[in-house]
């Protein structure tokens, strides 16, 4: 295809991506170096019939005018990145020198909002992804063994958790595990503890969110593996069988290696999607016990006081995280691409 034709064909799509994905990343980078204006204070003389006193008051007009002329705020350099709500270098330094043990240091580290969110995001991503792969493969093997007639309906019901809106899916589970919901109430009876609430404990909240993550993503892995199973060559399986491989050995040494490229694909998709975890925290009203990087950005942007600078700094750090996650994949694709060209 000629360069010129290619250009006209790709133009709408490329323009949309540049204007609404590439430029916003630039805008985020710019915003992260600025911080909201301070309010302009003026000295006002307050006179009562008896005496006059001068007090400091906010000059609303001047503040508004300043915000109008410089909407970005005032330049702050890297200070937003290093303040307590982000990388918090100063706080880490004190925590390190004051802490007597490594455990105490980590306790202090996790009290800082950014590291707390990072810890949850990484735990969530790191736990959900492998569970999804293993469970997805198990379900795929099970469904593959079913009689043809019931396969369709089984796949239908299995797809539901995945295609459901994340917020709605988490609400549905939340209402069930809520203290008055069916699962929550049953747990209270089982443990004979009427005050038992999953929301009250940090560990249980994390487990609840991770269970939601596994529940909602397993169908994706299942479908991919299920399609992969249809393409496993039957003669290889038969050959293994003739050589005396047991059922388990056939799964372990024939099917699993054959699924390896699919595992890479699912891992990649899951890492990308789990790293941006946001809706379950809102659906489960879990923000007191668990926050994610996406959640702290949303929290900065919500409400009346919009902390653009702070949100932008967290966004930049999140983008760095995504880049770290993606680097191995990109390097690998680049090598494959070069190998193909040679």
């Amino acid at each position, binding site marked *: 295809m000629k360069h010129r034709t290619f250009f006209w064909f790709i133009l709408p799509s*490329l323009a949309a991506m540049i204007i*609404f994905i590439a430029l916003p990343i630039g805008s985020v980078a710019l915003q992260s170096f600025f911080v909201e204006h301070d309010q302009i204070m003026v000295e006002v003389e307050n006179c009562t019939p008896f005496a006059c006193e001068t007090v400091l008051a906010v000059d609303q007009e001047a503040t508004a005018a300043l915000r109008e002329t410089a909407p970005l705020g005032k330049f702050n350099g890297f200070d937003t990145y290093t303040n307590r709500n982000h990388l918090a270098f100063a706080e880490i330094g004190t925590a390190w020198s004051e802490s007597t043990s490594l455990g105490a240091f980590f306790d202090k580290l996790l009290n800082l909002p950014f590291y707390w969110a990072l810890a949850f995001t990484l735990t969530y991503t790191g736990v959900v992804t492998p569970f999804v792969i293993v469970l997805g493969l198990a379900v795929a093997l*099970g469904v593959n063994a079913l009689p043809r007639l019931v396969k369709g309906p089984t796949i239908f019901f299995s797809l539901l958790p995945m295609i*459901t809106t994340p917020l709605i899916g988490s609400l549905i589970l939340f209402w069930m595990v809520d203290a008055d*919901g069916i699962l929550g109430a049953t747990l209270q009876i089982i443990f004979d503890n009427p005050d038992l609430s999953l929301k009250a404990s940090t560990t249980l909240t994390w487990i609840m969110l991770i269970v939601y993550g596994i529940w909602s993503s397993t169908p994706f892995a299942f479908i*991919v593996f299920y399609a992969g199973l249809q393409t496993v060559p039957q003669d290889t399986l038969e050959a293994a069988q003739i050589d005396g491989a047991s059922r388990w050995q056939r799964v372990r040494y024939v099917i699993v290696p054959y699924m390896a490229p699919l595992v890479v694909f699912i891992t990649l998709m899951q890492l990308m999607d789990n790293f941006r975890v946001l809706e379950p925290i809102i659906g489960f009203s879990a923000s007191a016990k668990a926050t994610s990087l996406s959640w702290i950005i949303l929290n900065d942007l919500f409400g009346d006081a919009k902390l653009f600078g702070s949100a*932008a700094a967290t966004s930049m750090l999140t983008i760095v995280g*995504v880049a770290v996650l993606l680097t191995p994949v990109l390097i690998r694709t680049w090598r494959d691409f070069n190998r193909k060209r040679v």
Partner: protein
Amino acid sequence: MANAATRRSRGLVLFSTGFILLWLVIAAGPFLWTVWGSFKVQGDFFSKADWTFALYGVKTLEETGSAFTPGGYEGAWLQEEFWRNAMNTFIVVFFTVIISLTFGTLGGYALARSGFRYAFWLLMAALVFRAMPHITLVSGYLLPFFEWNLWGHLTTSIIVLVAINQPFTLWMLHSFFLNIPKDIDESAMVDGCTRFQAFRHVIIPVMWPGVVTTGLFSFLLAYNDFAVTSMLLSQENQTMVPRIASFLGTVREQGNVMFAVAAVVSALVPLFFLVLFFQRQLVSGLTAGAVKG
């Protein structure tokens, strides 16, 4: 298939079937439970005393005189005017899908037919863009949109969703067009068509299966979105998902949790029918990227 060697022992069959049954209960159970419970009163659906109340609707019978009540739905759709949000969702999703597919088919076709190095780099860039958490992009939009008075309109959200959709749409349609033999559009061009005429008369008639599949995923992305629509739409333009999120705070105070339950079930209905009618396309679309590499 049924030779002696591949036949499974009874124990294995039982175990495997049991596992799948358990999975089905976990996967579909919560949905059935919530749909059933949405026709009850709060005292039943969130029954402290006895979970079977939600099955038989004991309190519902006492309060309304019937075992099922449409009270939650009336409250959500009429009193809270959820129909406005449903309409906004329809507008946003409809236009997002149409525009994404138009842009995506043109771009995906070009990428599939161009052997140059920059086509590869564009696909890589799209992959990186695909990985960007949506909320980080939103934090880039907000300030400029406020400044230029673009914030709050449905149109803005549609355009943003189209752009966020593009990386995925491009990848999917690109791999789909790779499977359409090059010869058919090239022979049209030998016969004197321009590239666009070849696309228009030869490719468009055969591309519908791929477009339908990609359209389904564009639909899901636009319909399920929370980050963009909750931050970029004003109160009166809210779509269903952000509205449900803002429901949560208000209805809990007023003791109208069933409104939220009814709204959630209402928002599930289109998704349910989507899987029902397009299961085959969804499955093939999910696996296209993986199996073909």
